[in-house]
């Protein structure tokens, strides 16, 4: 077995025991990424010098008898909307040019303190707006299981690098499904933590009341290990309310006896691809065998209004957050001799791609005084109903089992003419963000009808039930099997 095939715990244990060096691990992962990158195109920036120098420092610390931490020498890739001091950070957009942040995102600081080393920054839909990774200014990423298909998005690059074996874990961000959907398409594990569990300081904002950072891994134990490092309160993010709840990741338990797992009655009328419907049946059988009780809950407001509510809020927040990209403080700029307004317009019109412009226009439209009450404020009231509906559902269930998407990964370029139809496919993921809940996307196996594509499902729980979701994921992984590395066209 080559070093890049090892998981997070195996690499950290091997480096700490000096069975192999952090530099050897980094170089083998780098070799794998170089071999695959021509086909997968998952990275915007490969950090060869930064990463190797960090790996060298880990080895030096070990040679002095120091402990570099629980992620000693483990290579990681970060979605390119997380600030990395001195390393280009683009958010998948050309408007930031070669901007290198003067500070680290809190998540990257925590990973460095735990001994992780940076292999690169992952491709993503521009400013995290999209679900295919095709709106990136750097071109599309391919699904490592089928290079003609999308890896999902917006964290498609982060999912592809773990699926293809560049690194054993990566970080993505999830505003409406951007971790869970690509995890599902790429056949790996992805956690969208409870809103407030992980600091967003240094994350380039899209929808601030919805954005949450979380990990991708190839097994649930690695997920728990990484979450144990990331889940902590950060005084630099006032929405960070984790407290000591990160301790829930310290030990996994696969006991399912007496757990009530719910199916959503209102989702039954929606069509699912055969592979996903079969995965639902297989997973229900596995849960029942493990001792869980299947129940039903009702989410009628979610089923009918969640998509409209989400896009109204996300576009409104995006239009505000993206106002800061003006060509003055960082990134791309133009000659400003004709005045400030012209400069703003020129910079933004050239710098932003089509999807981002569309959402800025939608957000501007919905928040204008003449329409604000009718649309934006109405959406925030609908959101209250959605959050209440989930709270009531969790009176009768410990978690909800549901699809991540209605269909398997589509072909690259197979987008709907009508963007709203594409938005409808996010129905299963985005209500989770609106209520600030955790959602764990897990691998169930491969669909064999000529595709071989992986199929993922998700567990959704009450706020702060992240550890409990991983416990259930642990039981399911034992029953259904853990993800494996994709060939990525090699």
């Amino acid at each position, binding site marked *: 077995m080559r070093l890049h095939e090892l998981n997070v715990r195996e690499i950290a244990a091997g480096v700490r025991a000096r069975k192999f060096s952090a530099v050897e691990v980094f170089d083998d992962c780098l070799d794998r990424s170089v071999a695959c990158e021509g086909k997968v195109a998952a990275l915007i920036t490969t950090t060869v010098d930064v990463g190797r120098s960090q790996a060298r420092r880990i080895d030096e610390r070990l040679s002095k008898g120091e402990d570099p931490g629980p992620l000693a020498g483990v290579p990681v890739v970060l979605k390119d909307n997380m600030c990395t001091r001195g390393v280009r950070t683009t958010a998948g957009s050309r408007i930031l040019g070669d901007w290198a942040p003067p500070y680290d995102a809190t998540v990257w600081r925590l990973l460095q303190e735990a001994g992780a080393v940076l292999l690169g920054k992952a491709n993503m839909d521009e400013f995290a707006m999209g679900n295919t990774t095709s709106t990136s200014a750097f071109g599309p990423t391919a699904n490592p299981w089928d290079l003609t298909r999308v890896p999902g998005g917006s964290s498609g690059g982060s999912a592809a690098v773990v699926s293809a074996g560049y690194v054993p874990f990566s970080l993505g961000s999830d505003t409406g499904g951007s971790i869970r959907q690509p995890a599902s398409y790429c056949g790996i594990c992805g956690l969208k933590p409870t809103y407030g569990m992980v600091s967003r300081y240094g994350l380039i904002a899209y929808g601030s*009341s919805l954005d949450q950072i979380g990990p991708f891994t190839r097994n649930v134990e690695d997920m728990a290990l990484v979450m144990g490092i990331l889940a902590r309160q950060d005084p630099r993010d006032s929405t960070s309310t984790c407290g000591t709840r990160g301790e829930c990741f310290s030990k996994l338990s696969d006991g399912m006896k007496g757990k009530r797992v719910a199916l959503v009655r209102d989702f039954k009328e929606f069509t699912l691809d055969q592979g996903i419907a079969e995965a639902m049946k297989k997973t229900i059988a596995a849960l029942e065998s493990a001792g869980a009780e299947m129940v039903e809950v009702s989410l009628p407001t979610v089923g009918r209004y969640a998509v409209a509510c989400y896009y109204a809020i996300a576009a409104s927040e995006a239009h505000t957050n993206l106002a800061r990209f003006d060509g*003055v403080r*960082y990134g791309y700029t133009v000659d400003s001799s004709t005045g400030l307004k012209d400069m703003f317009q020129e910079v933004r019109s050239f710098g932003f791609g089509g999807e981002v412009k569309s959402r800025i*226009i939608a957000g501007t439209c919905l928040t204008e005084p003449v329409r604000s009450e009718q*649309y934006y404020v109405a959406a925030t*009231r609908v959101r*209250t109903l959605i959050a209440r509906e989930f709270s009531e559902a969790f009176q009768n269930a410990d978690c909800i089992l549901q699809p991540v998407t209605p269909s398997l990964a589509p072909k690259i370029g197979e987008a709907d003419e009508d963007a709203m139809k594409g938005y409808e496919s996010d129905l299963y993921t985005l209500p989770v963000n609106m209520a600030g809940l955790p959602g764990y996307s897990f691998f169930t196996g491969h669909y064999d009808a000529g595709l071989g594509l992986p199929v993922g499902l998700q567990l959704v729980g009450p706020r702060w039930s992240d550890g409990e979701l991983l416990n259930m994921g642990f039981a399911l992984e034992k029953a259904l099997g853990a993800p494996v590395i994709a060939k990525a066209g090699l």
Partner: protein
Amino acid sequence: MKLDSDAVRAIALEGRLSLTDAELAGAVRYINNFLEMVDRFKELDLTNVEPFAFAESVECPLREDVVGVFPNGKEILAARSTGTGPAFTVPRIMGE
């Protein structure tokens, strides 16, 4: 009510975006489909429903309100797009 191309162009300008004719045609289609989608809210009685504020019932922890020095001031200024010296420089504003 559907928005025409003049209205959409004006909204885009408020968002500091100028659109080509092709972009404008796409934006008109997009924004009208978007408004049709969010018009669904009219089916609901939202009287007495509070706007959603924050998922957590406890108050957000705030830092002490004291002035501090950001440690990387020089790096921040070095990363700017325009201007030199110890400040950001913006183009002419008066008369805009």
